[in-house]
């Protein structure tokens, strides 16, 4: 049955590609799950014994972390496959299994699946992963995902159902994520230990600053961003757990990418990859599409920082500021992958990150909303001119024209806007 479904899936995927209906990263899986709702479980059961599965979930950083893990494991000689970025519901996972099967069987050493926050409990009913990497939980698309606490509760229940085969790789700096490892002996924690990159005052968009155990307000010895840091509860004395001792080269800018890197390194170490191989693969790492990806256009450099919720937007702005960026294009869409509600732009700390004399162009479906947000930064950016251009193609042109030669244009788009930006810049379509 699994074999037949996989053959059908491959044919569907080919048809879908040749008719230009997208690249077939969800359709085949969707159909397979309609015929057999346990397709994923069954397909994994018939795979080679050596196959190990790694699930990566969290609001921000899934794609980058998955790609980092893949790069390291491949460098150490493993055959690895991963579901396509963004195709992170059960149907995307099913599709990737179909695409990477030969004669109805998976022959890889590792399968890495990035999983959508809401889908994680469902996916964990189908897959008992060898490693479950949980990165963070931030407010994101309230209209689709609901509240952060609700997701954390669902995750806790789903994790309690797992047997002790699964090793949890958890972010110790995110209180709600760290709490998921309480009473679980198979837990390894990653976190930051570098006061030089800490921030002094809590950010406005911080979510989980209350104890996940007793709901008392947490105290932070160090805050890295949002609610991530070295925390403890003065009431029930729950605290950040002991961190795995790892140090690493960081291939990507931004504090958020340090977490992604540490998570990947921890997974690699748990699989006995030696440190030299890890560091080598990190040094030759190239980012996933839209995640600090650099594109050259007409002799100018464009770097895309996917910015999809307050924390990811804040950290993009902070990183661009650290890179001394002077030319910004902000693109705000309100399609289903972005979330229909754009209220969150008022939670972004533009006031803190936008300095004087910066070129700002804004575009996207909701360009007037983001334009208005910029207007209200005043008087901080008094004298800073911003241009609102509804048409994205024209906006990119305008922003590039304003960017001096040898300077970088930093584009901060929401998810669907990022795909559009890439399509315009590379002439290629993704997803």
């Amino acid at each position, binding site marked *: 049955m699994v074999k037949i479904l996989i053959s059908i899936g491959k044919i569907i995927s080919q048809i879908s590609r040749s008719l230009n209906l997208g690249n077939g990263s969800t359709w085949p899986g969707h159909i397979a799950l309609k015929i057999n709702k346990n397709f994923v479980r069954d397909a994994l059961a018939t795979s080679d014994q050596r196959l190990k599965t790694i699930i990566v979930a969290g609001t921000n950083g899934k794609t980058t972390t998955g790609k980092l893990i893949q790069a390291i494991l491949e460098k150490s000689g493993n055959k690895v496959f991963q579901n396509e970025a963004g195709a992170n519901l059960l149907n995307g996972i099913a599709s990737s299994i179909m695409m990477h099967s030969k004669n109805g069987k998976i022959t890889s050493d590792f399968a890495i699946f990035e999983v959508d926050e809401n889908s994680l409990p469902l996916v964990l009913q189908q897959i008992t992963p060898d490693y479950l990497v949980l990165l963070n939980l931030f*407010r994101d698309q*309230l*209209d689709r995902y609901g*509240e*952060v*606490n*609700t997701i954390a509760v669902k995750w806790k229940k789903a994790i309690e159902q797992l047997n002790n085969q699964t090793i949890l790789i958890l972010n110790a700096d995110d209180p709600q994520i760290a709490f998921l490892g309480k009473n679980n002996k198979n837990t390894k924690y990653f976190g930051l230990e570098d006061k030089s990159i800490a921030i002094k005052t809590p950010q*406005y968009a911080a979510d989980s*600053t*209350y104890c996940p155990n007793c*709901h008392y307000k947490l105290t932070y010895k160090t805050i890295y961003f949002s609610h991530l840091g070295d925390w403890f509860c003065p009431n029930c004395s729950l605290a950040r757990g002991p961190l795995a001792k790892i140090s690493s080269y960081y291939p990507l800018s931004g504090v958020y990418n340090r977490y992604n890197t540490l998570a990947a390194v921890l997974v690699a170490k748990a699989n006995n990859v030696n440190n030299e191989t890890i560091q080598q693969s990190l040094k030759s790492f190239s980012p996933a599409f839209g995640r600090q990806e650099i594109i050259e256009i007409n002799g100018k450099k464009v770097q895309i920082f996917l910015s999809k919720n307050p924390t990811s937007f804040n950290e993009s702005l902070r990183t661009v500021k650290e890179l001394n960026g002077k030319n910004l294009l902000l693109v705000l869409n309100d399609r289903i992958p972005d979330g*229909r*509600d*754009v*209220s*969150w*732009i*008022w*939670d972004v700390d533009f006031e803190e990150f936008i300095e004087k004399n910066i070129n700002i162009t804004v575009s996207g479906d909701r360009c*007037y*909303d983001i*334009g*208005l*947000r910029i*207007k*209200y930064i*005043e*008087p901080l950016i*008094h004298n800073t001119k911003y241009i*609102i251009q509804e048409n994205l193609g024209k906006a990119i042109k305008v922003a590039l024209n304003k960017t001096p030669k040898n300077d970088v244009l930093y584009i901060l788009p929401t998810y669907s806007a990022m795909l559009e930006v890439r399509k315009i810049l590379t002439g290629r379509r993704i997803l």
Partner: protein
Amino acid sequence: MIHNTKYKLTIGWLYPELMSTYGDRGNIIALSKRCEWRGIKVEVKKLDVGFDHKLLAACHLLFMGGAQDRQQEIVSKDLKLKNKDLREMIEDGIPGLYICGAYQFLGKYYKEADETIIPGLDILDLYTENPGENHDRLIGNIVVSLGGVSIPPLRWKNTMVGFENHGGRTYLGKNIKPLGKVIKGFGNNEEDGTEGAIYKNSFGTYLHGPILPKNPHFADYIIKLALEKKYKKTIALSPLDDSLELQAHEVMIKKLK
């Protein structure tokens, strides 16, 4: 831009740490900037859990946003201790904007999906019920007409645009008027076509998060009420260049038609 004038307002921001889930800060930014641009001095007092209830009396305008369930639980305990002060201010006509969870708090009760009844502050004549988990949350863009309701005609628009996202359905009693009529969206309860509530100078609404930046006429109306209440005279606000605000507003109305 900022001039020294004789006018000054103190805005009391109730529970900024906990009742700020989705862009609620936009309202404080809009109120503050629109005052500053006119030379009206503004002080924003952040009133977080455990604040001294006497601080309320120094405020000329109140704002409170929405929250997640756990946060709402914590706030409701603290708010009970301030019930008397808040009630006196609302009855006295101190202008206030209460969004989503804050709006529900001011009513008689909130009935949760599992039928547990959480008593409200019982300041406004309204109640809220969550019809249960088989019913969808009311989520989406919303357009409201203020026309023919109890606000006098505003400067350039009688519509409001925003986004709503709530499980509870609110029903108004006899002693309270709706803020407006729903043109597109759900509003108070998806049945009677009303949205929000007005009682004296207090406004409750489901248009969550940053309602004021894209509805500057409403922002100005609240500022004007606060100034007039404080200085006990009619005050005309100097006009601002609202072309971008108007465009953001109009684009949404067109998009939703």
